[in-house]
């Protein structure tokens, strides 16, 4: 309204602010990726060196330090935990959306309430229980425990996806002689494929990144990457080890960052709707 030049100035300021936000958002990632290719001499230079001869030495050291086996732990635990939560949670969400469930509200509230309890409250009893069951340090133990993080998310988000599918198609399937299971698996589920992708990706990110439960329950043999990273790099204050720290950080980050950038539409939709 108030003249072309002012609106052009506002627009420029707006774009500048957005650029600033993006810069701060990605700076740690960019920094650590660059540092992972620097030599020990380059990595501690201030002001930071933007032009340097890249080296792969840090990644070699990460491999030599036996990171591969921890990477394997993380992959096994994450994939199994996500699969378990999706396999349990998606049918449950369908049930909550479609069936005449006794005590429906109470059960839904119970599922949701799990998300509101601080993890440390679960972690202490689970530690004691799992010591008794000799599950500390096993993959199986952590896989089950990660239900805590993922299942409520899967159920609530998938329920809203199922709610958006018109019940007419269930009725049509019923008329054609499909039973509940068939109409779920063959008719309704395929039309919520995007929703399944969405909850799977979110569960993957949360499980891969989880630290507290893994710290308490993974013992010596099931350590996942976030736990290893903090233990194994005790002396990272020493700039000589910054390259190693960066390279192992990049290894931990790569899967989640790549997935997010590839399918960020789903990630955005997921987080946008995740307040339930």
């Amino acid at each position: 309204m108030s003249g072309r030049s002012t609106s052009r100035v506002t627009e420029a300021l707006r774009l500048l602010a957005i650029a600033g936000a993006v810069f701060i958002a990605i700076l740690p990632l960019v920094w650590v990726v660059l540092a992972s290719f620097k030599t020990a001499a380059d990595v501690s230079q201030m002001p930071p060196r933007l032009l340097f001869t890249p080296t792969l030495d840090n990644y070699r050291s990460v491999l030599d330090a036996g990171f591969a086996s921890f990477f394997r732990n993380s992959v096994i635990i994450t994939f199994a935990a996500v699969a378990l939560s999706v396999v349990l949670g998606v049918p449950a969400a369908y049930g909550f959306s479609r069936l005449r469930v006794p005590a429906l509200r109470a059960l839904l509230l119970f599922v949701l309430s799990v998300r509101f309890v601080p993890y440390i409250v679960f972690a202490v009893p689970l530690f004691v229980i799992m010591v008794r069951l000799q599950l500390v340090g096993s993959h199986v133990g952590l896989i089950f425990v990660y239900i805590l993080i993922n299942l409520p998310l899967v159920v609530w988000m998938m329920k809203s996806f199922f709610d958006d599918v018109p019940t007419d198609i269930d009725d049509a399937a019923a008329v054609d002689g499909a039973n509940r299971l068939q109409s779920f698996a063959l008719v309704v589920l395929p039309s919520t494929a995007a929703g399944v992708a969405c909850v799977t990706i979110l569960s993957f990110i949360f499980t891969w990144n989880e630290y507290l439960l893994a710290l308490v329950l993974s013992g010596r043999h099931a350590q996942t990457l976030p736990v290893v990273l903090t233990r194994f790099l005790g002396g990272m204050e020493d700039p000589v080890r910054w390259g190693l720290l960066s390279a192992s950080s990049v290894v931990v980050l790569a899967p989640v960052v790549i997935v997010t950038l590839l399918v960020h539409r789903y990630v955005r939709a997921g987080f946008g709707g995740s307040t339930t």
Partner: protein
Amino acid sequence: MNRSSARSHGSAEREVPVRRSRYDWRATAMFIGPTIVALALVALLPTLWAMFSSLFDWHFHRPQARSFVLFDNYVRLFGDARFLNAMRVTAFYTVVSVVTTLVLGIGLALLTRAPFPGKNAVRALLTIPMIMTPVVSTLVWKTFFFEADLGLVNWVLGLAGIVGPAWTASSPSAIITILVVNIWFMTPFVYLVMDAALEGLPHEVIDAAKIDGAAYWQRVWFVILPMLRATIVFTVIFRITIDARMFEIIHVMTGGGPARDTEVLSLWIYNAALRNFHLGYGNAGGVVLMTLVAATCLVIMLVGLRDLYRRTGSS
């Protein structure tokens, strides 16, 4: 987002052919049963055990010597300076970071509202802080940015002639580092929620206000924010639950130091129950934390949504 669908489901307008029983018992057991059983095992059982054990003087390595003390652990908690400190730190940390992320997140969502070149790329890049492994981002902030001698922050301050502190090792800079990382980590979450919510607002209303001559800030304050109220309330509740359980940023950045200035309740419970192995005492702290979170969220929900539902109910 699916709050409304949950409500409409509760009122059950859908016509379902009535068979023998009111409920689909078999199908319920098949579809929902496994989830409920699984959650009962990994969530309900541990929570009940935590409450139960909080009534005992119970040391992990001396299970035979445990004794029933009723509420003694709770009485002790409220005379324990270290616990009270942890409550203060948690409250301060949660309030500051919830408010800041809310303001920044809504601001960013408003800023990126109108189209501009590269909008999709910007939205993708803005999600990066919250998908990055928190342990890793904290290590990066700690080692490269907040490091006293070679860190980026003190280098930038040095350009302005300021000698920066040993960030993570002194007070009050240590709590600032934690707040900065948490705000950096969580603002994208608020941004994504608000961005989605803004997209869903009825444009006619906002356009009408514009035609009526309302300036941009007036439209934001009197039209857009009131329409976002339910979303804001749920986001605040969600953010509180995330901050109240925050552990990794603090554990990695300061370990609770210096001098317990950054020891939040999660860390206090971890130390009491899993470092010092006082299970009963630590779990009593856990029950207090859980109760505080639930009570705070309930109050915020009741206050925040009160006349909203009355109004929609009457119209």
